């Protein structure tokens, strides 16, 4: 009764240039930690094997240090591990895999599926039909040979591949590396373990994408998990369970400030967001000067608490109220300038008028707080 852990798309070596250096480093580090958690999960769940369906590495030229760290992170689970090259780490003539072997960094418990064919794990009761990518991209279905690949009787037939199942995934997934939707049947597979789609996704009762164990973008649902698959015997329907492995929660919000309570809602939501969140926030609409100060404070607080907070306010207009203007003692031509900036905000997408208004308001406020020179 084989039980194995299905994972994919570790994308080791992924860089996060949109974040500042500290956060980028932490997010990159989280990917190694995800491997360690997978190993621990496999051990805890008494898995017979761990199958990785492609894109272990994000790039072929990962540094030696990082290659070693990947294998080190597998320590908790004694194997066997089967690692399949995907489109990011294809088994080229010279690849991250050949380097790992030259470095002698690959432990014995790890099987590298660098060539198409069969890997039989008798102890685990598994026959792994491997379809590694040996080019960066291909338009052939690499799983086609599975149909004519016989395995030892008594072993559960598991297909391990990386690509897009035809006619199932959204169209914006590129159609390279196609995989036939009927492969499970034609190749008499008990289970087809897939990689490439970064969210966990069920294609059929015998066919799943596991998704990446640690999210690395704002899109994709159900990223940050691994699958544990139980198959009683060859021909049995697999039992698939999903286990969360992700450390950070990537969220993208778009909020419009139309009425006064919109800001209150946002502030409340920010306060409720857990610290392991990577948040991308886009705010539109308009606020008064006081509201803008409230928002700024809330963003400042959240920014310090969350893993990362990136707020885009370019679509937000600042409209001081009459009372606010009066409070600023913006008399004479200064008042005219505030008026002009207000008007310009409405006419253009250019953030300059709003920024200018905030600067001016800031200066006027500062002046207001200074002691008057003459009474």
């Amino acid at each position, binding site marked *: 009764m084989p039980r194995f852990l299905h994972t994919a798309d570790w994308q080791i*070596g992924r860089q996060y*240039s949109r974040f500042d250096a500290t956060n980028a480093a932490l997010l990159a580090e989280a990917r190694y930690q995800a491997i360690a958690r997978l190993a621990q999960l496999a051990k805890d769940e008494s898995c017979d094997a761990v199958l990785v369906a492609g894109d272990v590495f994000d790039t072929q030229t990962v540094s030696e240090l990082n290659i070693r760290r990947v294998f080190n992170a597998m320590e908790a689970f004694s194997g066997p591990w089967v690692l399949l090259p995907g489109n990011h780490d294809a088994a080229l*003539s010279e690849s991250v895999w050949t380097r790992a072997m030259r470095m002698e960094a690959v432990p014995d418990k790890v099987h590298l599926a660098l060539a198409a064919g069969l890997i039989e794990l008798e102890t685990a009761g598994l026959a792994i039909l491997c379809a590694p990518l040996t080019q960066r991209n291909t338009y052939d279905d690499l799983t086609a040979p599975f149909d004519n690949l016989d395995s030892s009787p008594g072993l559960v037939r598991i297909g391990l591949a990386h690509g897009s199942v035809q006619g199932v995934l959204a169209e914006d997934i590129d159609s390279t590396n196609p995989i036939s939707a009927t492969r499970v049947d034609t190749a008499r597979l008990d289970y087809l373990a897939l990689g490439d789609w970064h969210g966990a996704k069920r294609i059929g009762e015998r066919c799943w994408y596991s998704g990446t164990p640690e999210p690395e973008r704002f899109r994709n649902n159900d990223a940050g998990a691994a699958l544990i698959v139980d198959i009683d015997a060859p021909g049995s329907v697999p039992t698939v369970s999903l286990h969360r492995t992700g450390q950070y929660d990537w969220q993208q919000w778009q909020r419009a400030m139309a009425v006064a309570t919109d800001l209150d809602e946002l502030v409340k939501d920010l306060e409720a967001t857990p610290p392991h969140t990577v948040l991308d926030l886009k705010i539109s609409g308009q606020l008064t000067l006081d509201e803008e100060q409230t928002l700024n404070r809330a963003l400042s607080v959240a920014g310090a608490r969350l893993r990362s907070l990136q707020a885009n306010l370019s679509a937000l207009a600042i409209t001081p109220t009459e009372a606010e203007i009066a409070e600023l003692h913006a008399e004479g031509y200064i008042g005219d300038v505030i008026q002009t900036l207000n008007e310009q905000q409405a006419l253009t997408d250019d953030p300059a008028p709003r920024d200018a208004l*905030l600067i*001016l308001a800031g200066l006027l406020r500062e002046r207001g707080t200074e002691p008057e020179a003459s009474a």
Partner: protein
Amino acid sequence: MKLTDIRIEQFRQFRQALALEGLEDGINLISGPNEIGKSTVAQAIRAAFFERYVTSTASVYQPWGDSAAAPSVDLTFEVDGERWQLAKRFLKRKRCDLSIGTTTLSNDEAEARLANLMGFNVAAAGASKEKDWGIPGLLWIEQGSGQAIDGSVANAQSHLEAALESLVGDIASAGGDDIIHAVASQRGELLTPGGKPRNDYLKTIQQVEDLAQKAEGFAPRVARYQESVDRLGELQQVHQITQRDRPWENLREKADAARTQLAEIGRLQQEQNSDEQALATHRTLLTQLATRQAEAEQLSEQLQQRERDRGIVQTELTALEEKTEGLERTLQQAREAYQSARGVLQQARKAELHQSLQQARAEANEQASKLRKVQQDVEKLREQEAAARESSQNNRIDEAILDDLSTACSEHDQLRIRLETVATRLKFQLVDGVTLRLHEDILSGEGEVLLTEAAVLDVPGLGRLDIEPGGNDLGTLQREYQQQQDSIDALLSSLNVPSLAIAQERAENQRKAQAELTRIKELLHVTAPDGIEALATELDTALRQAAEAAERLEGMEAPNTDLPSLDTAQSMLDSTEILQSEAEQVLQSHQHQLAIVRDRLESAEKEWQRLHEQLHSEKRHEELRQLAAELTETQTAASTLETAIAERQLRINDANPTLVKQDIERLSASATSQENMHREREREIHGLQVYLQSAEALELADQQVECETELAYAQRRLADFERRAQALKLLYTLLQEGRQKLTRRLQAPLQKHLDHYLAMLFPNSSLQVDEALKPDLFQRDGETGKLSELSFGAREQMGLISRLAYADLLQEAGRPTLIMLDDSLVHSDAKRRDTIKRALYDAAQRHQILFFTCHPENWDDLGAKTWDLAALKADRPA
């Protein structure tokens, strides 16, 4: 505002108190000589307002040498009907007290209130500075600075604007300046005044550029890496196949088979070559043998020819020898004929000589007789010549003298005629018998006498008549006539003739004789051209020749008469000589020919003999036999070889060695090429592996990621800078525009007041104020220029009226105004001063003016109260 009382004590010149009390509205002329303390009064008023009561710099106000003094100023003035009293004490008793109506303020509070009232800044510390002076700094003109208005306006500007807020009916935020400064300062951190990025902004732009360039630099390196990986894959695939199949070995085997085939062909070719060589040798031998056989056959033919040759030569010789006798006879006959002809010629020559001698003798005799006749003719002519010469001698006369004589006679005749014309003509007709005596002449009957000189006519019986001929020249003529007569006589005498006629006759005779002589001479010349002596010699010669010829003829026989002529005889001799010579030549030639033919015969004989012996020798027969045998043998051998060669060539052609050779080359080259390619692939695979495993390749991704991360960060930072810069730019521009708009609104009322005064001082001109409210452009008579370009005097006047205009403007805005002029306008002439006085008087209708001067006489028509400081000092109360 109206200043009513001033009191100064322990202040510079004024150790004792000085009080000016009851100052009036309008102009107050405060006068006094230099050093009396006019400027000190002005200074005291300034100190009262501007200088902090606490400042230690007030020590300059202490009277000279009195460090214990406490300078004090007390001012009383009215503002809006309220009475203000200011008491300021410096140094020893530093205080400031101000009472306004019933309110009392002191020290700092009092000073702040004053600054607020007048529109200036309280000095921060130390002495008050120009920049703090505000509106008073503009309206209170210090000695010698009336022309410098720009600085004063700038210092007063914010106060002016604040003061004028109400005037423009708007709330002009004078406080906006600090915001503008703050924005400008923030903008200045990011942008240059010209709007170009600077500082961190500029650095970030450069950083982004550098990083972007660096990031771009990775693309080709990454591409190279990926291409290398692909290439390696392809190479490895091909390499595996060739390593297994080793196609070059198969090619080499084929090449070896071809080589074996070629070696066989080579052997055949060698045999062929050796047979062909043998055949060639045989053919050469055959040619030689044939030649030798032909030579042998030619020898007997030659012998027969030699025999024929000898016969011909023999025949030729015999024929020649037969002709010899005939030729010798012909020669003999020719010689005889020649001798005969010689004899005839000698005879003919003798006959010829005889005849010629006879002829010569006859000719000589004839010549002699001719010559004798000539001799006789010459003799006769000689006689005629002598006769003519004698006649010529007898009639000889000098022709020149004859000419003179002839001339003299002619003149003499003319003189005589003139004398007769001039002379007194005395005609008379006397009765017969009566005679008169004139000189010795007796006159009778009828006649005429010419009197050329005085004459006495005796009339007998009657007396005498003295006749004196008239005319002056009669005497002269008479004398000339006489002289001419004398010369004629002398000439006749020299010619030895009695008269001219005779002389002429003799001359004629002489000419005739001369002509005769000439004729005879010519005749003589014709007859005997060489003279008489030559004639004689000729005659002798002729006679001698005749004698000689006769003598020779005497010794000679008479010649034979039938002889041929000399020419004929000579001709016969010549022709016989030619015949003889020809006969000699013919014979000689014949004999030469004989000798040659004999030689030829001898050599033909020898040649025949030699050939004959050769032809009939035994050795020769043997050689001929051997030759024939050798020839047959060689022909057989050659024929055998030819057959063998032809057969073998067919075999060689079939094998086609050229193609076999090409096969070997082709196959070997292919094998080498394939193997080389294989090795080359191995090398390339190795090179690619080395590269792909190199640190350079491996670190590529890390470096690229690092670079792109830095770039993304720098780009975010740059975007922030750009946004902030745009916002600040916009804000700054809008603030500036607002500020300028406000200023422009203040310009109009100021311009109005300025025009009011300008019309008095400079009619038909205009003065414009700029945005900072400073008088700027001056226009007069259509010309425009900066105020600063005018003369000092004009600038000072402009400065004054500008200040008066500011005062009007401030008053209009409800601000207090006090104008002080300390010894101003010293650079203005009397005429201009008059117009200034009108302007001042006009201003004084609205403002109080303190006018300090040391020339009160210049300003005594200002209509002002005059305060004489000297008098005040003298009248000072004890």
